């Protein structure tokens, strides 16, 4: 399969735009855009990039990432680290952490997810999704009720708004999920796997 040049070129371009000071500063100005726009966007770009990986490279990675386990370990560890309020603060005040964020989140969360998620056992997938959802709700609740600021760089009011936003997103997610289960809608098999039987056979 020929990978078009555009497919890896675009995410890198957007990544570059995000890393440039104007957009970076605007998104980091508020805790809400930092956590709910910039970080997810970075992870998404990594996912996109992962989809554009050449088959050769994917095949070389596959034996190191059977059932997507290695990739998910990387994803979980990276997510846990970037949930530390301290890490978020450091990303703003220390350039090294900012660089670590811009490289770590796309590659260790986004790309690792795209190379691993659909190889993952469906029970593991369900557990991870449930846990991720619970994390949203827990954090949301924590941010709403906590009397202290967690990040030195953000206001308490913003922390509360973020908390409510997380709870709302989590609730919407739960409703969609419930509907899906009730009406029996199943996950679609992604294109990369469908077009690449050598990968899916290893499941």
């Amino acid at each position, binding site marked *: 399969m020929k990978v078009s040049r555009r497919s890896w070129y675009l995410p890198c371009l957007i990544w570059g735009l995000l890393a440039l000071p104007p957009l970076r500063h605007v998104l980091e100005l508020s805790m809400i855009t930092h956590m709910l726009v910039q970080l997810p966007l970075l992870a998404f770009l990594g996912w996109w990039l992962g989809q554009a990986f050449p088959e050769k490279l994917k095949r070389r990675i596959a034996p190191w990432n059977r059932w997507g386990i290695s990739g998910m370990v*990387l994803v979980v560890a990276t997510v846990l680290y970037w949930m*530390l309020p*301290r890490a978020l603060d450091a990303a703003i005040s220390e350039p090294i952490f900012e660089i670590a964020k811009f490289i770590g989140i796309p590659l260790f969360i986004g790309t690792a997810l795209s190379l691993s998620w659909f190889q993952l056992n469906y029970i593991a997938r369900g557990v991870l999704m449930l846990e991720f959802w619970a994390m949203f709700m827990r954090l949301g609740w924590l941010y709403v009720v906590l009397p202290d600021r967690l990040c*030195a760089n953000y206001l308490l009011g913003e922390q509360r708004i973020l908390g409510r936003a997380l709870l709302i997103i989590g609730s919407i997610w739960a409703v969609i999920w419930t509907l899906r289960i009730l009406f029996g809608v199943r996950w679609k098999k992604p294109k990369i796997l469908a077009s690449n039987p050598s990968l899916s056979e290893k499941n």
Partner: protein
Amino acid sequence: MRTLFLSTLLAIAGLTALWVGTDGGRAFTAETARRLEVREHPKPVPNWHLEDQNAKTLALSDWHGRYVVVDFIYTSCTSACLTLSSGMGNLQREFEKALDKDRLRLLSISFDPEKDTPERLRHHFSHFSGEGKYWVATRPTHVVEKKAILDFFKVTVIPDGMGGYTHTAGYHVINPQGRLVAIFGVEEYSKLQDYLTIALAEGKSNEG
């Protein structure tokens, strides 16, 4: 086999990163990290020059040999600084003896030097019965110096969107050797009292 090897390796690396990133599970926020760091690695405070409420210049090194409690304020503040300042006012009463004997000093530094002129600092003092003798309110005289001071103490100041600021609030203790040795949050006022009582008593016994 390769997957097992790689995922174990990644898990170890991830846990190490989390362990190091939280100072061994002790500091999840930048504020706790700041307090912990000072406790474990006291660092010498550079000799800055500040302008006090009487428009006199004061060098921090003038206060060597004394304990100094530092807080950061701005006079138009309506929240944290009021708590901080009334705490300083309490210290002024409770540690009167130590202050009199020239063993303790209280220092408020304004991070809003453009607005906080010596007059305003004096006015601010009058609300907290600060007599200005042992408790000195100051402002940095230069923008560069202000930044250096805030960076050194790792005090973050952000606009609160209503014309004021939200900032790291706490009491910073400098020991007689001129090192920053402890930071107490506003909520840790009683810990600060205990700390000072012990520290001042120890100093006394050392003097014989």
